[in-house]
């Protein structure tokens, strides 16, 4: 079902607030993986505010949909999204990265409410998502599992081990996104280690692939609706995104994979997001 205009407006507003909060947390915490958090903010928004069957009051509800952030270094974006969705007070974000805090760079599922799986090391999340999807089959449960994989992360061989398994077991209850922001720490993905033709790779691994603009809620919704209706196997949504999306001086600059914000820079980041509104 296409998004209604008011849904689209609402999602845009939430995504803006999440981006603004990511900027603030980056400033408070002394630094964060802000570029990749901003690139996937729209995917997180549409999942947590439109599609995931979850209840923030019952983070351990057995029948909830599962979400795995395979690119675990995007934890700052995930934490902000969870706070906005009501899993814990936004005030807790003040402690992001602080010593002994329940919230840090790579989220710990034993400490942060709403985090289904601990991730951080690259190439681990998709396998765990496959496990969750298989468990739903064994337990005859209706939940769906969603996973965001990084494009740089897709250099890891384990991603492709998981890809093979998801196809082999025809996991139609598994939907993955590739946050295709084209950048990794050392530069452009195609310069560091070519991924293209990425869609063809996933297709060859037996997945059904949808390529969308990862900042267009209508396109994202269309792909997710396709995945939910699809009964044949796993779906990969390659979401073309802009690293640092929304903060003009960060956009498409690999240097903003990780960084801190303060003073004039912080003011510029806030102003840029204001213009986005």
């Amino acid at each position, binding site marked *: 079902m296409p998004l209604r205009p008011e849904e689209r407006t609402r999602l845009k507003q939430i995504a803006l607030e999440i981006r603004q909060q990511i900027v603030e947390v980056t400033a408070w915490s002394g630094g964060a993986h802000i570029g990749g958090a901003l690139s996937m903010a729209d995917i997180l928004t549409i999942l947590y505010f439109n599609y995931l069957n979850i209840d923030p009051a019952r983070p351990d509800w057995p029948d909830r949909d599962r979400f795995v952030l395979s690119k675990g270094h995007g934890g700052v974006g995930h934490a902000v999204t969870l706070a906005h969705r009501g899993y814990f007070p936004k005030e807790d974000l003040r402690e992001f990265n602080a010593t002994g805090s329940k919230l840090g760079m790579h989220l710990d*599922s034993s400490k942060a409410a709403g985090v289904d*799986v601990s991730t951080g090391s690259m190439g681990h999340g998709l396998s765990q998502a496959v496990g969750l999807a298989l*468990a739903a089959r064994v337990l005859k449960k209706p939940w769906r599992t969603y996973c965001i994989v990084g494009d740089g992360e897709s250099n890891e061989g384990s991603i492709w081990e998981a890809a093979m398994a998801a196809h082999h077991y025809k996991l139609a209850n598994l939907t993955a996104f590739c946050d295709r922001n084209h950048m990794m720490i050392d530069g452009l993905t195609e310069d560091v280690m070519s991924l293209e033709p990425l869609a063809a790779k996933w297709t060859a691994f037996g997945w059904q692939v949808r390529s969308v603009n990862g900042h267009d809620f209508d396109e994202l919704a269309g792909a997710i609706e396709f995945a939910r209706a699809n009964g044949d196997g796993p779906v990969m949504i390659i979401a073309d995104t802009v690293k640092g999306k929304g903060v003009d001086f960060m956009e498409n600059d690999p240097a903003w994979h990780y960084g801190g914000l303060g003073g004039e820079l912080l003011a510029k980041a806030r102003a840029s997001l204001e213009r986005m509104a």
Partner: protein
Amino acid sequence: MSTTEGGLTWTVYDADKLTQREIYGLVLTELGERHPEIVGLSADLAKSTKIGTFGERFPERFFNFGIAEQNLFGVAAGMAKAGLVPFVSTFSSFASMRACEFLRTDVCYQNLNVKVIATHGGTSFGSAGATHHSTEDLSIVRAFANLTVIVPADGIEAAKAVRACMEVPGPVYIRIGRGFEPRVYDSEDYPFEIGNAVEMCPGTDITVICCGPVVYHAVQAAKILREEQGVSVRVLNMHTIKPIDEAAILRAVADTRRIVTFEDHSVVGGLGTAVADVVAASGKGCAFEKAGIPDEFSMHGYPEDLMHHYKIDTDGILEKIGEVLGRDFEADEDWEDEV
């Protein structure tokens, strides 16, 4: 002779005819009848690790992931997160090394209820050589927080360990051999508790602490020494490497003042090191030696030949005990000057 426990019946005949791996497969299948939450996972080693027995009985609960051990452990973590109890079977060299970080970060960090059945431990893969020997696994996995590490002495103890691990609310690593190891126990009629060493032979002159297939040889050596030389050798089957039975080690220090460890594993970081930690921290004087695979890559050969070469069979244990008994050592009753 047979015993029944939880609906399972074993006979000595079975234990003589079946390998540890076959017994594991049968026990897991029996457990699967009572525990619908158990799932079996392997990586193209369902036949080799005998988990296939479980898969034949419960095809909807058995998953083969092909030759992809990283994914194997990642998937197990995801399944455990959803409340299932995955039993993951692969060779111990792959479980501890190929999948190392997935075991550590996905399973142990999240303290998940995943049971690892690591087969072909130590040099038991014999002719396969160092690529398939597993002489570092205990050293590696012992360092993972939340993980219980068990090395059963024979098939009967493997059966007990597989059942007992269901009572542990977290990850367990059970290292078994390739099979064909001689039987140590006459029956299942002995107390097996995770974390408690089994005293196989009482003794006051020296204590041998060992695990896995070496236990059989240590018991043989103790019998020979008692009967032929009147030497009283205490043999502790330290089937649980972590948490280690500190009390049993401290009693051995106090009672015998001489300890030798034997293991089918490198002398770096395994059982011997775990025991040494306790002995050193005790502050008590004790002649102590570690025996096992030296700090080198193990060679090809028949498993029994390798155990002989590395002096962890009966002959080697006799030789080492002789050395340690002969060591000049202050054996007075005054502990004050040693602290």
